[in-house]
């Protein structure tokens, strides 16, 4: 188990979290949470996490807000957004400034995400 890459997935929709967990657990060690705050707690708890993927629109703290806070504490980790929206200005800026590596679209493309993680 321990040789698998550890990733975090944050989404406020239970169904999305469950499906991500089932699919990505085959190749990775997946930790999930329903909000940015839960994401920050997971990052604290599991320091050897390499990749963080987050949904964009969530209550309280959106994906970029969560990543901005997380990136400050853990600048070496790689962050991604997985969203059902078109590319917004906020996400575009986040890519330009290097806050996130890339943004994935929903419905997600499994191979695209795996390729991105395996590059690391």
């Amino acid at each position, binding site marked *: 188990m321990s040789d698998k890459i550890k990733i975090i997935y944050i989404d406020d929709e239970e*169904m*999305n979290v469950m*499906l991500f967990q089932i699919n990505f657990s085959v190749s990775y060690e997946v930790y999930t949470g329903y909000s940015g705050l839960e994401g920050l707690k997971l990052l604290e708890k599991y320091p050897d996490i390499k990749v963080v993927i987050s949904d964009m629109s969530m*209550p309280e703290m959106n994906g970029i807000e969560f990543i901005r806070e997380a990136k400050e504490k853990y600048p070496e980790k790689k962050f991604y957004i997985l969203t*059902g929206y*078109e590319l917004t200005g906020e996400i575009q800026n986040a890519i330009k400034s290097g806050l996130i590596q890339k943004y994935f679209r929903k*419905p*997600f493309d499994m191979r695209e995400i795996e390729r991105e993680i395996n590059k690391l």
Partner: protein
Amino acid sequence: MKVNRFEHKITILYTLIGGLWILFSDKILYSLIIDKAKLSDYQTYKGWFYVIITAIMLFFFIRRHLKKQRDSKIVLREHQNQLEDLVKVRTELLELNIKRLKETQAHLVQTEKMASLGILTAGVAHEINNPLNYIMGSYVGLLRHYKENTFSDYPEQVGKLIEAMKTGIDRSSAIVQGLNQFSRKSDSYDEDCNVNEIVENSLIMLHNLIKSQISIEKDYNDSDIIIKGNVGNLHQVFINILGNAIQAIKSEKGTISIKTEEKESEVLITIADTGVGIPKKDLKKVTDPFFTTKAPGEGTGLGLSITYNIINEHKGKLEFESEVGKGTTVRIVLPK
């Protein structure tokens, strides 16, 4: 105005001629006729002569006068015809303008609908992408399982994947159904309208505009409320009112509470927000066409005007209560 009227003229002339004739004709006759015995015969001829001459003069005189009258009558009739033609042309022009105005109005109403539809498109796209994501997740997992027997030790995972696909399909189809209801064109006011369902549909379509700091509190009537009305138009009503409520909340946190109640003869829907509120001076004008407090390009100023008309067509009432800084409450009363 001629004072010298025809009847005066003719009387004076006749008197003049008659008088002069009487004065001079006998004198002339006496000086000309030497044979006094035949004088009475000549006097008879003279009488005849007088009558014939005056009759001829009268004839020409009256004819001249009548001709003038007849001519002016013809001119008058021509003038009248011209006037009638002019009125006809003007009326046609007016009717054309009214028709154009009506078309423009219909166009504007449609534009407003399309504008709100445009705002909704982004939200609906996201709303559909989410269940599509379920279906995709389910497909990816099931495909892998089919090829590699990945979850053979965890049959419950397979069950979850299948379940997710069903949920995804159900949700997408519910959203598409909601959209169809909004955009459907029907003039009938005799459709069964499920009030709770229409409010819920409108919320789905507005989902992407509902910022994370807004909480929606729903207090729906326990049983379904069905009224007669126009389903598409009622969707527009709630999308407009809820859209305004969302836009009114500009601060950190806000609440929109929605209540639907079924009374004896009417249905009451209350939508209250804790937004910026409407100043008293503006409150009366909110349903005026083109009245807007939004920046140019953000609102047509037709939303609430159309809402008001739709409620009117349902024989309902639309009431606003607002306090600046506290929020706005909109009450919609619809007859059952």
